[in-house]
């Protein structure tokens, strides 16, 4: 394939063109990282408020409670509680995880790892970031409204999310904000897909791409196809709220015409189920790479891993119905969705086997990125296996909408993705900022996150099995939840511990970027052979002086035939054979 010429433009000089309206994929990646970390803090604070209310209903939130809720003396009021869990979900999914895993790593890694000078459409890239800024701003504004922000759960099922159940502009702003977010995501997806297809360096076949790129690329395909589906649902719901249409209204409250609230659930989950894979695929990709890099041996069954990720991507599009068993679809449909959902366990088993195979007989270096990657294997194992309960139609009769579901999806979407995100951040930090983060603090961060994290989410699943259902302001008005009071307190303590542990990360992150006397990172601190490590740290303007020619796979480590003293090969080197 003839290779496209990529011009080198002059480096921008002014602050605005360099750091604000930047067209450089590396700067945009970092912008997404800052943006994501900001929202992670907001969403995290909301999680603390939620957890506190669940463990101590009616007790003022310590320290800052009286500042946040002066009229109740620091107690979270019930309507605010509903708003909090709605916003916690929305923020964490769309404004924290998506920007960090897809926005930051997608932007930063794709051109560097496939050997390109930039994304193919830098302007689109810049617009994508500023669209998500605008959508974030709308969400922030909605938090300040007199009637409060959206409070119908992050899924915003009608008819609760129509004017019938939530008057006030908060829900409308939520819809607009998500619509803008969707536009931003779609732009990003178009850019990523095209970049990976067209800008791979000469010799970089699909099966020589690092698995990180595989993950992000598959995610982008899902994004491009399914985010517009959500867009359509959001438009129709907005019409219901603003123009008085009745697409999703039914029952006694629908005076003119009769719509169907379940239609929205279908549309939402056609998008929503791929969305959970959109979030997890980049993390899987990153972990697959890092496990190989730090075991100092090639990724076990590289091709199988890539193909099983692809298989999961395809399967993820046809299983959405398992979110809706309780709406009582036809038995045939319900059973098909159960069977299809169960099939996902096979490709998952394949890449789990490959992950463990990568560790097998390696020479494992327990650096912080590696620790976090091993953490992902552990928590995703738990998260994936607990999905089996919920895929089963009969167990779901009991467990649907209980804390078991909450525990399960936090294991998969929050714990795995967060740990994967941290692994990526520690790993690419030297290439992003040219400095090394403190390893000791990073390891403390890992253990102080990992232990309470399992306390929280296992605790949640136990509560769910004991019958406690979701989104309760005060769970203890029920008799059958009385026994769970101590467990709820335990989970809250764990959550607080995990929340505080993140300050280790923040301190480490900011200190390394802005501190003085921080040692500079070498161009390849981890001894890894993918393309981004062939150039200096931080990555220079326009990345590669000469577009590299790729000659071997991304995980050529531990080759016994190597004679030059290093135990890995750059992708630009010919594979050494015996």
């Amino acid at each position: 394939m003839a290779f496209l010429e990529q011009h080198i433009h002059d480096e921008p000089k002014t602050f605005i063109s360099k750091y604000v309206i930047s067209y450089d994929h590396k700067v945009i990646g970092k912008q997404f990282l800052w943006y994501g970390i900001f929202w992670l803090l907001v969403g995290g604070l909301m999680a603390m408020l939620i957890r506190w209310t669940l463990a101590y209903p009616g007790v003022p939130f310590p320290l800052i409670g009286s500042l946040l809720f002066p009229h109740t003396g620091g107690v979270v009021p019930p309507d605010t509680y509903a708003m909090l869990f709605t916003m916690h979900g929305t923020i964490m999914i769309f404004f924290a995880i998506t920007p960090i895993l897809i926005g930051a790593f997608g932007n930063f890694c794709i051109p560097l790892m496939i050997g390109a000078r930039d994304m193919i459409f830098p302007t689109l890239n810049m617009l994508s970031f500023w669209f998500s800024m605008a959508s974030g701003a709308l969400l922030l504004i909605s938090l300040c409204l007199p009637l409060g922000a959206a409070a119908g759960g992050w899924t915003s099922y009608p008819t609760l999310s129509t004017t019938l159940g939530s008057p006030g502009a908060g829900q409308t702003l939520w819809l607009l904000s998500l619509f803008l977010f969707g536009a931003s995501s779609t732009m990003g997806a178009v850019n990523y897909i095209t970049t990976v297809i067209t800008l791979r360096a000469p010799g970089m076949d699909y099966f020589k791409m690092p698995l990180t790129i595989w993950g992000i690329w598959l995610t982008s395909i899902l994004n491009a196809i399914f985010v517009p589906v959500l867009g359509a649902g959001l438009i129709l719901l907005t019409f219901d709220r603003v123009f008085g249409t009745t697409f999703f209204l039914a029952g006694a409250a629908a005076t003119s015409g009769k719509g169907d609230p379940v239609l929205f659930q279908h549309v939402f989950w056609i998008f929503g189920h791929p969305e959970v894979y959109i979030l997890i695929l980049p993390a899987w990709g990153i972990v697959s790479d890092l496990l190989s890099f730090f075991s100092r041996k090639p990724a076990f069954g590289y091709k199988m891993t890539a193909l099983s990720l692809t298989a999961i991507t395809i399967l993820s599009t046809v299983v959405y119905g398992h979110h809706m068993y309780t709406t009582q679809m036809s038995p045939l449909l319900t059973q098909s969705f159960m069977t299809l959902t169960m099939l996902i366990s096979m490709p998952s088993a394949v890449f789990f086997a490959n992950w463990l195979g990568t560790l097998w007989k390696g020479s494992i270096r327990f650096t912080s990125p590696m620790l976090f990657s091993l953490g992902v294997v552990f928590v995703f194992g738990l998260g994936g296996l607990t999905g089996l309960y919920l895929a089963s139609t009969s167990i779901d009769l009991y467990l649907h909408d209980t804390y078991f579901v909450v525990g399960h999806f936090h294991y998969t979407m929050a714990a795995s993705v967060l740990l994967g995100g941290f692994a990526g951040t520690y790993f690419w930090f030297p290439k992003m900022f040219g400095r090394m983060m403190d390893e000791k603090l990073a390891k403390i961060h890992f253990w102080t996150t990992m232990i309470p994290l399992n306390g929280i989410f296992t605790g949640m699943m136990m509560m769910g099995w004991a019958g406690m259902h979701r989104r309760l302001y005060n769970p203890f008005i029920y008799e059958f939840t009385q026994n769970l009071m101590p467990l709820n307190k335990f989970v809250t303590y764990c959550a607080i511990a995990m929340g505080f542990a993140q300050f280790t990360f923040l301190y480490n992150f900011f200190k390394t970027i802005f501190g003085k006397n921080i040692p500079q990172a070498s161009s390849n601190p981890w001894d890894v052979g993918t393309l981004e490590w062939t150039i200096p740290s931080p990555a220079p303007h326009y990345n590669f002086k000469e577009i590299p020619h790729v000659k071997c796979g991304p995980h050529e480590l531990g080759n016994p035939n190597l004679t030059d003293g290093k135990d890995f090969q750059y992708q630009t080197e010919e594979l050494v054979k015996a």
Partner: protein
Amino acid sequence: MATKAQIQEEKVFQNSVAMTVTLIAFGMMFATLFLGYFLVRANTAVWPPVEIQNMPKLLPFLSTLVMGLSSLTYLKMEKSESQRSLYWILTFALGIVFLVLQWILWGALKEKGILVSNGNVPSMVIAFTWIHAAHILLGLIALSWLGKYVLKKKEELTVIKLMNVGKFWHFLGVIWLLIYLMMFVL
């Protein structure tokens, strides 16, 4: 080093990849709307319902003609180099005419008392035409961006620009045809 022709070929390829992905994205959005339509239709006892029987027939037919014509003039614009400006103006004008016709259609519906909040079928007809019209606006913006190169900076006009805007414009034509067929004909 790649030759100029090769580079050109590459650029066409990468742009058509991007445009294809974009159209898939837009297509999925409309497909979702159509899914809603089919569900509503399946749950409506008599089709066409009274509201659709009462709707003006001529106006949407004219819109369809205009949309089709504009696609033809676009094709002409791509082909004929000498009369490119003329065909660009025609295409753009037809786009405007389409929007005006839609405006008249909404007015006519309003006069007959068919409002967007009047139940499922009117909601759907009006909401879909609104959403489509919003995309036509996007298309017109793209056309005027193209016009800059057709009318003024002729040397910077490339096949890729013509091709991509064209794909989007024809796509909107196809969507309109589907809406027309589903709402007013079948």
